[in-house]
């Protein structure tokens, strides 16, 4: 304890301030990071691709891409990274941080906006700040089965209908010949206005030392 505790605390202090995680949570994430990267300094897309539990998620590609997207690093840069280090990993994770016991209303608003921005970036793959019909169709097709109950045409129809709904809500006096550019971030926010995100879009951390006990020789 003692001296080593304060040293690791100062190393992670900056990270704690930027992301809002506690020291214990950051340590756990570090363990996880090292596990995923195979004890290397950086993680590549292949490392994340190899996670078995992620295999059955329909939007797996988008989620992995979100980790390498510069826009999720809370800077004003755009583009994609090839590999990410621990800091960037934690920054992306911080979008899913649960609100602490006492957060003010403004802080909650800020967190909410961040979460929405994260989702928006997931849809908007060409970084132009607008989700076009093509981009949205892509996401919907990923979500629905290519082979099962809903066919290609039906998936398209669903995407189109959803876009139409967004358009009619946000630009109510649009003429039938007008071309709806795409969903901007403001429109996105508007559509998901009532949604209670704080409890739906966060991951609950367990505040416990996660070292597992194993019998015999230690393995992992």
């Amino acid at each position, binding site marked *: 304890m003692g001296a080593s505790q304060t040293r690791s605390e100062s190393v992670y202090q900056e990270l704690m301030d930027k992301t809002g995680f506690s020291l214990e949570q950051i340590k756990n994430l570090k363990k996880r990071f090292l596990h995923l990267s195979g004890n290397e300094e950086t993680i590549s897309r292949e490392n994340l691709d190899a996670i078995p539990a992620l295999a059955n998620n329909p939007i797996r590609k988008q989620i992995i891409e979100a980790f390498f997207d510069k826009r999720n690093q809370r800077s004003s840069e755009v583009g994609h990274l090839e590999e990410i280090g621990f800091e960037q990993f934690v920054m992306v994770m911080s979008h899913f941080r649960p609100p602490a016991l006492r957060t003010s209303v403004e802080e909650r608003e800020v967190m909410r906006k961040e979460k929405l921005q994260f989702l928006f970036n997931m849809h908007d793959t060409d970084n132009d700040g607008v989700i076009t019909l093509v981009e949205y169709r892509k996401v919907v097709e990923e979500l629905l089965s290519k082979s099962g109950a809903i066919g290609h045409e039906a998936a398209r129809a669903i995407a189109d209908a959803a876009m139409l709904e967004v358009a009619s809500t946000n630009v109510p006096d649009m003429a039938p010949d007008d071309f709806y550019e795409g969903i901007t971030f403001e429109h996105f926010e508007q559509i998901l206005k*009532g949604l209670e995100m704080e409890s739906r879009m966060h991951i609950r951390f367990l505040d416990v030392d996660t070292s597992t006990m194993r019998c015999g020789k230690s393995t992992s």
Partner: protein
Amino acid sequence: MELFFNPFDNLVCILLGISFTVWFTLLLVFIIVPAIFGVSFGIRRLYMKSLLKIFEWATLRIERGAKEKNHQLYKPYSNAIIAKEPTSLEEEIKEIRRSGSNRDLDSASEFEMSDIFYFARRGVESIMDDEVTKRFSAEELESWNLLTRSNYNFQYISMRLTVLWGLGLLIRYGILLPLRVTLAFTGVGLLVFLTSVIGLLPNGRIKNFLSQKVHLMCYRICVRALTAIITYHDSENKPKNGGICVANHTSPIDVIILASDGCYAMVGQIHGGLMGVIQKSMVKACPHIWFERSEVKDRHLVAKRLSDHVEDKSKLPILIFPEGTCINNTSVMMFKKGSFDIGATVYPVAIKYDPRFGDAFWNSSKFGMVNYLLRMMSSWAIVCSVWYLPPMSREEGEDAVQFANRVKAAIARQGGLVDLLWDGGLKRAKVKDTFKEEQQKLYSKMLVGTQEDRSRS
């Protein structure tokens, strides 16, 4: 020399004598005799129920204490980074939608933009921590079982709780521990003595019958020595002669738990000391398979002896723990394939300990055997469930490894344990796409109801 006879001394002697007699009679009547006949008064279950009530009360006190100080509490039994909810896809998506729109959405049958939340969150959860759920939600505080070795919330204990804990300590170390140690010695002593006696008989039906009875009786005494409260499920699937019984391994007590309900031939290495004595006398009464240390490495020899035993239908089923080591009872690790290669029928058994009463897992790098047994004997009780699964045999075209994995999956599923099957995923590359499609199908089935009504633009 003068003898000093103090009348007071006399009285004390008499009292001691009486209390010993009473104690031994009680012991005999309530514990040993039922063990011999395999009946139960139900005292242990009553004990378990009252313990649970006390634990609940203690937990509430701690929670109250913590709430007053507005802190988060430690949850000692989790080994995951995050807490996952065991809800289904449909339920969660309904929840998300319900919290969002004002429309009355009783059916989850329309696509909503918010549906993507669910998948995004699940995806990030998988990245953060992909050791799958524990059975009970880790958010609820596990009840404190008055054992400080398992409690991290010391600062929330009030005076009343401390008193209760002290009382518990007294009872456990002062009353329960000596009682259990006596029983343990009785059980083991009887086992050694009686099996040696039976070994003198000529081989035959009477010998087998007697040896079975003796083994059962002694193991039952040992079970009571640990105050183990065991629930056996599906006893119609109990292993039969000529088969191999396979179970997951959490502690050395597993052997006692299984052997008190049925007769098995044990497999193991010959130890020195007390264990060695027990092993040698057991093998006199009925054939167990003990290996010298040098023989253990020789796989062919091991396999040959096992298959010889299995082919002889008059011999008891073999009991094997294929994990090879003790696991902490939340997951089932890789099964070693040796026992699955033999070609006999496999009877899987799942053992699951109830963690509310104490952690039965033996961390052999942390504690030695004696230390471990003392800890077990000074806890309140050991509560576990045993499920006998239907027998399995190796199918056509299946090799030993696949068979082993199949059995392992069945055991893990029944016991609610995590099946740690993933081994780098190299072989699973093809499986990945099918899993993704399954989730897609599930989601689309949910939406497919109103497809006909949707207006096409």
